[in-house]
């Protein structure tokens, strides 16, 4: 046989690219999917933009950093979009009952994981990027003015979203599409302890300890430090990155472990509702 390249290599960017291509085909062929990507971030940004305008005229605190609420909304959406990006792309394979074909090909589960992460990046850039551009037009506020800190916040939130997305995909792989609604709600459990709109110090002491175990709380604290105090806190960035590394390792380990459970239980051929 001579039609194939050497496909026995343990990690192939070519195979990851093939799966990314599959998701891009899907996205390109479905305008409702593209609209969905930018719809919610835009609605959120518009809502909180007007709220900011109102509060600016009423409070002196917000006047110190007028973009803090819009930034918080946009950063939160990066986290939400990146988690959804992983989970929903995996669900697409379950909706189409395609896992059986995928995993009799040379595709490794961790290559699929990488493809899901890459597609999550693409989706997040489209969704949050679109809303950010609109914020410039509507409120003359550019989150891009944050410069390097924005890149750091983006990376930290993206990694947390990826790890949560992999965990949710694992739950759905194990328990079926009946658990898919988790993809839409799980992240909101993190919202109160992430300090999106308020500093962590307003939380009860025991909850502060919980909050600092979550990378996003360090990111939002860091965002306020930049926007209100004009200081980029590298200690917060370091904490967020370390926690992200732990979360992402755990997310990928759970995904791969669940894949093995699925192989043991025969879920890959009959996966669905």
């Amino acid at each position, binding site marked *: 046989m001579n*039609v194939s*390249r050497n496909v026995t290599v343990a990690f192939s960017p070519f195979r990851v690219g093939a799966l990314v291509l599959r998701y891009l085909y899907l996205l390109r062929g479905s305008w409702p999917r593209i609209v969905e990507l930018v719809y919610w971030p835009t609605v959120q940004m518009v809502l909180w933009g007007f709220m900011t305008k109102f509060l600016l005229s009423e409070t002196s605190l917000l006047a110190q950093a007028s973009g803090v609420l819009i930034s918080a909304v946009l950063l939160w959406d990066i986290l939400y979009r990146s988690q959804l990006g992983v989970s929903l792309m995996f669900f697409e394979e379950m909706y*189409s009952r395609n896992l059986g*074909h995928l995993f009799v090909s040379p595709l490794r589960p961790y290559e699929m994981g990488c493809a899901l992460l890459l597609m999550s990046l693409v989706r997040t850039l489209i969704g949050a990027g679109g809303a950010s551009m609109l914020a410039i037009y509507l409120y003359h506020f550019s989150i891009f003015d944050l410069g390097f800190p924005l890149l750091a916040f983006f990376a930290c939130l993206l990694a947390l979203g990826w790890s949560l997305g992999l965990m949710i995909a694992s739950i759905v792989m194990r328990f079926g599409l009946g658990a898919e609604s988790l993809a839409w709600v799980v992240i909101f459990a993190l919202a109160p302890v992430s300090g999106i709109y308020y500093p962590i110090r307003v939380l009860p002491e025991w909850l502060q300890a919980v909050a600092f175990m979550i990378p996003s709380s360090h990111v939002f604290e860091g965002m306020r430090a930049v926007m209100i105090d004009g200081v980029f806190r590298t200690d917060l960035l370091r904490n967020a990155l370390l926690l992200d590394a732990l979360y992402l390792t755990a997310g990928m380990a759970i995904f791969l472990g669940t894949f093995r459970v699925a192989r043991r239980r*025969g879920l*890959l*051929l009959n996966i669905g509702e």
Partner: protein
Amino acid sequence: MSDAVIEVEGLAKSFGGVPAVDGLTFSVARGSTTALLGANGAGKTTTLSMLLGLLIPSAGRITVLGEDMLRHRYRVLPRMNFTSPYVDLPHRLTVAQNLIVYGRLYGIRNIKARVARIADELGITPLLKRPTGNLSAGQKTRVALAKSLLNEPDLLLMDEPTASLDPESADTIRAYLVAYQRRTGATILLASHNMAEVERICGDVIMLRAGRLVDRGQPAELIARHGRSTMEEVFLAIARNEDGPPPDEATEREARKKAAP
């Protein structure tokens, strides 16, 4: 080197303590077309899934193309492929997009030319730009077959390859499979409920009942051994256990002896 492409020994799989496959031992010779037959629930799909690495056995050993499938399946998966009408390709992608994606997963060189060629051979060229979900069941079966042949597999596992096809299309596909095997020397293992198909293209038949191998041989041998006139009658006799009690240790040993490489 063994001439067997598949060697299975003591293969077992239970779900919640209920055995689906119960101590299977058989081998499949290189270049053969072998049918895996049995009534619903006999363990055919479970066996195919284990051979493909989609399912981890509870016990036993599987060697495919000379490799231990439980430890080194990625060494052989590029040389295998699989088709089943019960496992879909993504519905929203066009046929061409699906074939390109799978071609890339298998590392096919010059994938667009390969897709064009296989589409031409299987008569699906007019379907290439259509969403896979909009095809009829028969068209989907042909597209799935095209996907399974993209990498010119040395070993092709098929679950009811001509299900949902009209007689003319099914006949074309069978002829194609025979020609493909002659051209490439590939080995084909197929599960089927179409006994005429089995008689036409399979040189060897493995009969399963309740997860156990109960008989094995060439179609003509089985027909003669069971005193029937067609494979359909042999199938029914075995499925209904009309030719004797459930397999005891002695008959199973005998069947396994015949199945041994």
